């Protein structure tokens, strides 16, 4: 893969997110013509679909979007489990997207430092990848002796990984694959505790 500049990296990730957002929105969009006389804040909004991101019951959520703004999250009426209902956490989900406290840019805290400083995606990824190679090469165990037999183990000792029950299946699948390919064997997450 050609090395990407920060600019092109951002461009393609943003494009991939936006493209899937648009494609899916089209699939789900309905014209909401209710309440023409007394328009609600949801009038004219596109409807999309989400799954609650708190406990593991997996409630369906009707997500209302105007432009890039998430304006409401309500229970999805056709979902067999929640049948349109939600708990207070599920109802609050739009705040998770809209919050001004969200992290929006990569940050770095330097050794001994007392604050977060901005770092570009490109520099952050570069730093991480180089450190992975450095620590992996330094702390790699190719073989161990087990009862007089030499056993190939291919373990990276100096890196641990935690996470995550909070990300999508595809993402955690890639995370496992990534960690195992690196040789990481100190690997676990929330499910163990």
């Amino acid at each position: 893969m050609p090395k990407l500049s920060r600019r092109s990296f951002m461009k393609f990730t943003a494009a991939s997110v936006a493209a899937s957002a648009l494609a899916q929105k089209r699939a789900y969009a309905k014209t909401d013509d209710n309440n023409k006389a007394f328009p609600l804040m949801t009038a004219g909004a596109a409807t999309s679909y989400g799954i609650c991101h708190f406990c593991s019951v997996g409630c369906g959520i009707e997500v209302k979007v105007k432009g890039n703004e998430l304006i409401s999250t309500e229970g999805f009426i056709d979902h067999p489990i929640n049948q349109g209902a939600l708990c207070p956490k599920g109802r609050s989900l739009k705040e998770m997207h809209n919050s001004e406290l969200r992290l929006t840019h990569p940050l770095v805290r330097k050794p001994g430092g007392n604050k977060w400083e901005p770092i570009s995606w490109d520099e952050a990824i570069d730093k991480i990848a180089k450190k992975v190679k450095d620590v992996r090469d330094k702390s790699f165990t190719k073989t161990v002796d087990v009862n007089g037999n030499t056993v190939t183990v291919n373990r990276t000792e100096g890196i641990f990984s935690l996470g995550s029950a909070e990300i999508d299946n595809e993402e955690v699948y890639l995370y496992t694959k990534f960690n195992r390919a690196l040789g990481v064997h100190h690997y676990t997450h929330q499910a163990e505790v």
Partner: protein
Amino acid sequence: MASLAPSFGSGAMTNSFTDMKNANVILIGGNNTAECHPLAMRWVLEAQKRGAKLIVVDPRFNRTAKVADIYAPVRPGTDIGYLGAIVKYIFDNKFYDEEYIKAHTNALYKVNPTFAFNDGLFSGYNPQGGPYKKDSWTYQLGLDGLPLKADALTDPDCVLMKLKEQFKDYTFEKAYEITGMPVDKVKLVAETFVKNRPGTILYALGMTQKSVGVQGIRMYAIIQLLLGNMGMAGGGINANRGEPNVQGSTDMAALAHILPGYMPMPSDALPTLNDYVKAVGTAKAKKTIALLKAWYGDKATPENEFGYHHIPKRSAKESAAKYVPIFEKLNQKAFEMGFIFAQNPAVSTPNLDMVWRGLSNLDLLVVAEIFETETASFWQHPDVNPKDIQTEVILLPAAMAFEKAGTMTNSARWVQGKPAAVPAPGEAIPDGDMIYEIMNRVKELYANSSDPKDKAILDLTWHYEAPGHEGIDMEMVLKEMNGYDLATGKLLDTGSQIAKAEPGTVSSGLGGLYTGVITEEGNHSLRHDNSDPSSLGIHPKWTFAWPNNTRVLWNRGSVDKNGQPRDKDRALVWWNGTSWVGNDILDVAAKDKGPDTPEGSKVFSTGEGKGALFRAVYKQPQKDAPELTLNPGYDPNIFKVAPVITEPGIADGPMPAHYEPIESPVQNPMFKQQSNPMMRPLELQEIQKSGDAKDFPYVLTTYMVTEQFLSGGVTRNTPQLNELMPSNFAEISTTLAKKLGVKSGDPVTISTARGKVTIDAMVTERIQTLKVDGKDIEVIGVPWGWGYKGLVHGESINKVTNSAADPNTGTPEYKACSCNLTKGGN
């Protein structure tokens, strides 16, 4: 799930939320459903409306108890005491389902005559330490390697009689003595649960966060097998899992001991693929080879053992659980670098000093999050000077659920897809995109390497770009997880195709676990047809459930010996004379084999094909295995000689026994052996301290509230939830409050051997003083999800909880530790 898998063959919530309405009785023990799974409670209440009895067992009269028909208090960490009394009650009155246990459990199997249990210790115990020697935890075998069966359930050698013997002393009175649950309550719980069938059991972390977590849930498995409740609509064991995708992340094996799809992780005790196949059995090994084909494509060949050595081998001597060990090793300076994706261990880990001290030993910590958490900002911990911490921290901004397309798996194994609805703010991107990009960059750095160790990275399949645009497409990842027939290039339809295929001719990143989720027909995780023709809450066309879209696991157990539903109102599957049909997809048994054949009568997928009342160590032998000399490394003939399924047993015993929590206010009323004899020794003596009842007379337990979720990383940043639950509290009984002169709202100091925290008291009737072993026992309850970041703050109770853990799962004993409580702030 380390207790359900050895009992039944695989471990997950067996039924579904919408199935709970079919129950005639529901026991909730170790789960506060109304508080922590509010929309699951909808289906508990629906069952109650239809006449079901609801039993809640909990140290606190919680929000779920408020609507229960029966509430019974229990001392934290002692559930096996009253569950043992239920088992004894079933035996004393012969209330077990005789036909079911004879046909579908190992009740009749003869146990090795050298097996024994004395004063809290099983045979094979080594007083010098180390694991049990398990060679007596076996069956008497015939010449064919199959277990010998007793003629009658009264045979003293048979499993059923061993089980009866194991629980003969758990009277109702003894249960009271152990648990503090009044005798009449124990009796009422036992009668109500046993006499109303089908019954289901709900549990969550209230059961697992104990030093005997696995054995407690084994009690549920034993009771449900004895009553014939497994495989029934309205029956089963419903583990209500805690996080939005914790079922999925467990399936994806973000764990040290397994690979995605529940195949064992290779270890250094298994130097070659031949060794691995022999140890794990051919059924699982075929799945592992399918995974290696997904990860290494054409580079995975029989000659290189399908890339077996590209995957690290864990140390067979070290704990297979890694959570607490990682923090121990961090303090021992074992790591230079760490990744933490979407997890907040600086609030959620027991004995929190381990965390911030440990993380301070890293060169580089990489955290991916949507909000700034205590973990990302561990260097801002109130007890430290940031200048003293030389760790560089990179904090990557992540997209949240609605900002990315992908699937999540709910507790009931439903793999539910969702689109990206809105763009992520600023430069935030999905975690998957970060991982994809980091690996691409690592691959570039290694591009010119010819070192064999780097093949694991260079040969790794990592192309997920959809035609038409750059960047990663998650549906491509889902397809890899589902798997392909490598000859035709078509997506696989069911996991059983992997069992039938020659190893190396099919691929699946999950060894077939999710196969069927996305096929040539389309992406089933996006199906939104909520029809329910049977009215049993099956909803067969709503998204997809693993395995094979089966909604009720072990559902072959719902029929009689003729293949007809045992309960016509709850018919899941049945034999129509030529094949199995029904409202649900048949689980485990062969679709075209009659109910009287071995393949058509199989209910469970254990090594024996039976539900394990006694979890023996066992290997299902290959039929007619030839005498062969195998080529070293990998020889395809290994699949003709290796065992089919292997059962390695459970670390702390083939049957449960009552042990006290590691920190306990009383002597074990059952045995001289005080607590779980298989506890892993802790590494950090100056941090992981243990206290006794003399200094710490009360029992501390922790939990969650509806409005503040887990570590609070999201909810403490959500104003509308903070308005509902703005601060933390410590629940104490009115008796203790009176004794100490504490009123609601007064600050109190809770101390353990690990330290002190100050929290405001909430004096409540919800917690009652328990009578145990003639002593008054006070329980203190504290929600755990508080810290120093976010919009609302509070001291983390995990500063003082205990990191001693279950020896099977590594899950720490958050639910029961010894504490003191004094009036006033720290």
